Structures are given as C-alpha cells and as structure tokens.
C-alpha cells in the first residue's frame, strides 16, 4: 500500500520541476532563434543564394584568409547523414574568391576596415562563448560556417549557417552566440554608412 502523501509529494515535485523547466525555457527568448524555421532548413544555403548576396556587399576577407592560411585540418569532413549543405567549404570559398577578383565591388570596404570589423566581432564573441558542455562530454568538435550581415548601424542581421559542422548542437551554439551579441559597438564609424556581409568560420576544437 503506497501512502498517498508520498504520491502527492511526488506530484508536487514534478509540477515544480516542470514549472522550473518551463520558466527556464521562457526566460530564454533573447537566445531563441526568432525564426520558426527548423534549424535543419537554415543549415542549407545553396550556392546561388550565396552569389546573390555577394553582389550586395563585399565579403569578409576572413573567408579568403581561411582558405589561404589554414589547411583542411580544421575542416572536418562532412559526416554521413549530417546536416551539411552539399558543397564543400573550399568550393564555396573559391567561388566567392573568383567573384571578388573578377570585379571588385564598388562598395568594398578597405581590407583594413574589414579586418577591424572582424576584430570587433571576434572580441564580442569572446565575451559570450561557451563550449557546449554536452558536446564537450561527447568529444564533438567541428567547424560551422556562419554568414551574417552588418547594417550601417552595426546591428547584426540574417545570421545563418552556411555549412553545418555535422553537429546540431555546435551549429545552434554558433547561431546563439552571434544572436546574443546583437550589434557591434563602434562598428558604425568603420562602416561609413555601408552594409557589410561576413562569412565567419567558427571552429570548435578540443585540445589536450
């Protein structure tokens, strides 16, 4: 015979736990992707879409840098069944390179400016990073290629995953970090009224 008080107590406990969980979920809005699109959709961006954004704004120097200075070692091969777009980063980047060398966009920001902006973004990320503990425990690492738009006021818009790391948790984390930043302080001065589009590889790497 189970005494009813203990059953009662366990119901109360579960209600409390559930309230707590919901409370936590509700208190998250700033970091919840505003789009109702499932994350899997956001991971896929066709190269044609990419080209259309390319003509609007110069692309981050950073992407080219990545291709020239970093080897493939930190680009994980796409995992079987993972949510990656069906193009390799190298292809994506070279496609982009051709574009920028063939005709320099008139609105291009100077390299120095671009570098400075990327520095600002990186610094902002440093204040918000967290290696997702779940991924840390599984030993999951990878690279997420994220694209974002900076408007003339330094606000970050249209953040999307261009190429998935193969791990949903890392993709989501990269998006959440950038969303949380919201805007880049002082970017306005450097942007001089222009918009700016950046391709940023975010690499999750375990050491030791």
């Amino acid at each position, binding site marked *: 015979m189970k005494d009813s008080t203990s059953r009662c107590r366990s119901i109360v406990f579960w209600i409390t736990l559930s309230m707590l969980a919901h409370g936590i979920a509700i208190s998250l809005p700033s970091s919840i992707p505003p789009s109702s699109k499932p994350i899997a959709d956001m991971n896929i961006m066709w190269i044609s879409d990419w080209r259309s954004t390319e003509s609007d704004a110069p692309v981050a120097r950073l992407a080219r840098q990545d291709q020239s200075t970093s080897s493939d070692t930190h680009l994980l091969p796409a995992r079987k069944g993972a949510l990656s777009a069906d193009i390799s980063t190298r292809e994506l980047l070279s496609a982009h390179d051709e574009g920028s060398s063939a005709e320099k966009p008139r609105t291009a920001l100077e390299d120095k400016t671009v570098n400075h902006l990327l520095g600002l973004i990186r610094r902002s990320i440093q204040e918000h990073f967290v290696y997702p503990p779940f*991924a840390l425990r*599984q030993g999951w690492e990878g690279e997420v290629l994220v694209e974002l738009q900076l408007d003339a006021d330094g606000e970050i818009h249209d953040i999307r995953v261009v190429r998935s790391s193969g791990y949903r*948790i890392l993709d989501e984390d990269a998006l959440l970090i950038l969303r949380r930043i919201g805007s880049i302080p002082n970017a306005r001065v450097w942007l001089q009224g222009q918009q700016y589009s950046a391709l940023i*590889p975010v690499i999750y*790497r375990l050491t030791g």
Partner: protein
Amino acid sequence: MKISVVHFAIVLAFIPPVSVIGAENGAEGPIVITATRIPTPLQQIASSVTIITAEDIRANQWRSLPEALAAQPGMRIVTSGSVGAQTSLFTRGTNSNHTLVLLNGIDISDPSTPNGAYDFAHLDLSNIERIEIVRGPQSTLYGSGAVGGVINIITKRGQGPSRYTASVEGGSFHTYTEKLSARGNDSLFHYSMEVSQFNTAGQSITPERLRAGQDDENDGYRNTTVSFQGGITPTTDTEFNLHARSIHAHSQLDIGSGEDPDSESSVAQRFIRLEAKTTLLEERWKPVFGYSRSRQNRQTDNNRQSSLGDDEHTRFLGESEKADFQNQIVLSNNNSAVLGYETKTDRMTAAGNSAFGSAFGDFILTENTSVQERIESWYLQEQFTLADDFHGTVGVRSDNYDSFPGARTWRFTPLYAIPATATKLKASYGTGYRAPSLYERFGSTQTNFGTAYTGNPALKPEESRGWEIGVEQALKGGRLEPYFTYYKNRITNLIKVVYLPSFDSTSVNIDNATTEGYETGISFHTSHDSTITAEYTRTRTQDQNGQELLRRPRQMAHIQGKTRISPLSDVTLSLDYTGRRKDVDRVSGATIVTGGYTLAVIGASWQSSKNTRLHGRVENLFNKKYEPIDGFQGTGAGFFVGAEASF
C-alpha cells in the same frame, strides 16, 4: 643558493576551462572556440558518470568528500552526526560496502573494517583535481566492491610556472581551516603538494531529546592532510609519477544512547603509489606499471564514567599492497582494448578490548584477528565503434582469491550518440560482486564467557546484476540539458551476521535485495558562468521479505544555482531535500520511519585583486534540526568566511 622569500599571494590558479583563441595573425582567420578535452576512460563511455571538477569544488566551497558527494544524483551520504563521525555512502540504494573508492588508482578501502565499508569522514578535498562518480555495477574494471558504483578521485598535477597559495577560513563552532599549496612544472619535472589542517569544536552529535538533562558536550574534529603528486618526464612519451597522501584525524564521538564526554577515535592513513607510463608502437600501445600501498590505523578509546558505563580501547590496522600492469592497445581506428593484470595482498589486525558494565559484572569483548590474503586478477575490455555514432564496450574480469573460488564478472554497454539531434542514448548491463571482508571470513571476537563472533571461511561473494537505460538531450545549443536514467540492480548472497544459540555469532550468505529507481534532472547554462541544475532521484529498495532497506530515502532532490553577479564575484545557492526513510531508533533499536528534511547553503566569493580572493558561506541556512541517522544530529546553521592569497 639564496633562499628567496616565498610570497603567498592570492589565489587560485584558476585556469578557465574554455578559451577563445584567434588564429595566428590576430584580426584575421576563423574564430576558434577551444576547450580542454575531458579524458573519458574507455570504461566510462556509456555509464552514468558525474564529474566534479576542481572548479565545482571551489565554487561550492566544499571541504570534504562527503559534502561533494551529497549533492550528486543517486548518492545518499549518511553521517552519524556531524563532520568527522562515521560517514557511509549508499549508491543507488545499494549497501554502504557496495561502493569502491579509488584515489589515483589506489583502492583506499580499509581491509580491517568488519563489513568492508569505506568511511568517507576523513578524506578532505585538498589537492584534488577531479572526482569521477560512475554508477552501476563496475566490477569488470575495478574488482570487488564495485556493486553500486565507483568513486574515482584524481589529484592535481602541477602545470605552468610554480604557484604558491595560502588560505585560511574561520567560522561557527570554532572551526578553522588552514591550507598551503605549491604546484608547477617544467619540461622535466612536475609537482603539486598541499598541506591542510582543519579544526572544529563542533556541536554535540547527540540531540537534546536524548540528553535527558545532561550537559551539552561538543563533539569536535581535527584533520591534518598532506598530499603530494610529482613526477619526471624524461621523454615526451614516458613518465614516472609518485603520489602520496597522509591523513591524521581525530574525532570526538558519542557511543551508546546518550552523551559521552570522552569517546573518541583516531585515524592515521597513508597511501602511496608509484607509476611508470610509456607509449610504444606509434601510440598504439600504452603500458602502465603501478605499485601502491596503503596503511590505515583506526583506534577507538572510551573510558568509563560509572561502573555501568562503557569502556573501549580497540585498534584496527588494515594494510594492502598492489602491483598492477595495464595496457591500452589501439587495434584499429574503431577498436581499442584494455588488458590488465593485478595482484593485491590485504592484511588486517584487530586487537583490544571493549567492556560493557552491568549489574552482573563486566561483559568484555576482545578483538583478536590477524590475517592476510592475496588476490590475483586479470581483465580485458574492448571498445568498438560499429557505425559512426554507435559505440560499445564489452569486458570480462576474473578475480582469484587464495581462500575461495574466484569471481567472474562481465559488462556490456552500448551507446548511441546522435549528432543531428544532440541526443545520447545509453544502456548498460553488468555484473558486480563484493568479496567477503577478512573479518567476515576470519574474524574472531572473544568474550570473558566464550566467543562473540567467529568468521565463516566458507562465505561466498555477494553478487549483483544490474542494468540501466538512459537518455541525455541537449537543447538550444547545449544551454539546456535534460536527462533521465532508469536502473535496476539485483543483489544475491548478501552477507549478514546471525546469532547462534551458543551466544556466538557468524556471517552467512542469506539475504537478497533489489534496488531500482530513476535519476532525472535538467541543467540550464544561462551563460558560461551561470548554471542552474535541478536533479531528482527516486529509489526503491526491497529485501527478500519485501521490506525496505534501512536509511535509503525513496526521494532525494537537489537544486543548485551558480551565477556571476559581477565580473569578480560569484554566488551559489543550493537546496538539498532528503525524503522519508526507514531507520533504527538509537535508544530502543526498533525499526522506525523518520521524516525528510531540506538543507540550504548559500555561498559567495569575490576576487578582490589579482592575487587575493575572499569567500564566505552559510551552511544549513534555515538552521534545520535534522538527524541523518536517528539519534545523531547534523550541524546547525554555521557561518564561515575565508581568504586566499596566491603568488
């Protein structure tokens, strides 16, 4: 050589576990988020594992092992009163002798303990880097005693330039802690040592209701621990390490049914381990040789205050010596194995008398046991990856004892970690056992009339079979992590002391028990330095007669919040609920049900300068009167503050 003045400045060498490093050339290049890989031993991959890091210990201001364990799911810590008194752990509802405790690979259980249970009272957390708690039957890797789980304690290893730390803390009940530590490394040597001293005048462990007009007498405790870990790395692939820990503790106790002003117990423990490691065949073969020794001396003294009082002077000495050889072999990219061999010798000596006064004269018990035994074991465990995300381990072990047929155990654990949904599905099935203790088999206690206890050399090991299934899920980029694990253990041949008509007693394999339940919880990482965790454990235990096992609460819950309120200060708050449970009345010996209680702790710390850190906490915030064991009360509200300086 000039002797330089060592400045003990502030604080803790706090190495953030995660850092963001830009690529080589500053502004350009990808954003790299790195963290230190958690070394997951092969065997733990699909088990229910909780890792307590040095950072957790620091943030929660835990001082001793029981404090850290009490906050973990599935763990029920029971102290006979307050700090320093006999402390037992019931993992997932199993008995107090069903959890194996390892310190850097040394089995630190005391072979002289009559029922083989480890006393958690005296292990403080100085010089400790990490505590791994593995739940479920784990005998396949660790041998006897790993029925409910394993606690694996790993000490700090010196890293970086030499760093010296001094800290002091003081507070309620005349409690003072002093610690000094030094650690560092260079290309050849590494060292980490810490000396700590703890003193408390305590409170009485006998509650007012049992004092019956007697004066309140404080039961104090002191503990001095020295820990050293150091080594030489002659080449990058080879290293020789030495680890040593010495503990001297003294506890004031109350024996019998009320206050006892001079009942006390002293403990001296020494553990030492030498280890040689190397890597051969292009990192495919990693052999490790180890040799360890432990010596534990436990002395209990109590002088009688009246002719009817108790008088006790007993001494138990437990020693063990172990040599082990472990090989990690990488067979292919998705297949690796651990093959090991161990040989261990346990020795115990018990001597001394205890006397109970009565109207008919004294009844005197005389301990008289001196025995030793050798165990030889081998084990093999394989870890494989079948598909990309499907991993598994399978293992077998054989333990062979001098005096009885050995034990064979095995274990299988599949794990499915799904990257596309950040879900981990795990399961395990395994067997475990506990060899009867030396006292249970060969012990002897005489009385002035005859014999009070005679060991039973024919005892068989206690055996368990257990399984668990669980799911862990990460949501919102890992910021929200719920989990659920269901487990069940069946233990047979449990050893029990039975009384014979001749007034003698002995141990027999007579009882069976089942423990089952679930552990569930959710962690919410609001940012990298703020976390809220809520956990709930439900346990159901039953012996062969359908009766619930003693002192195992059906429900336990724990809520903890940790947040950074400014860049330099942190606040933690934790609430621990322990539910109703069956117990034995301290005075009458009758079986009773005791009520639940909730304890709250609030703590804060402030990095006041680069080298100094201040901290404070209030334990048992609501000054709850509670008895972890009937008739032995826990400590009331206490306020503690401390400072730490490092250089």
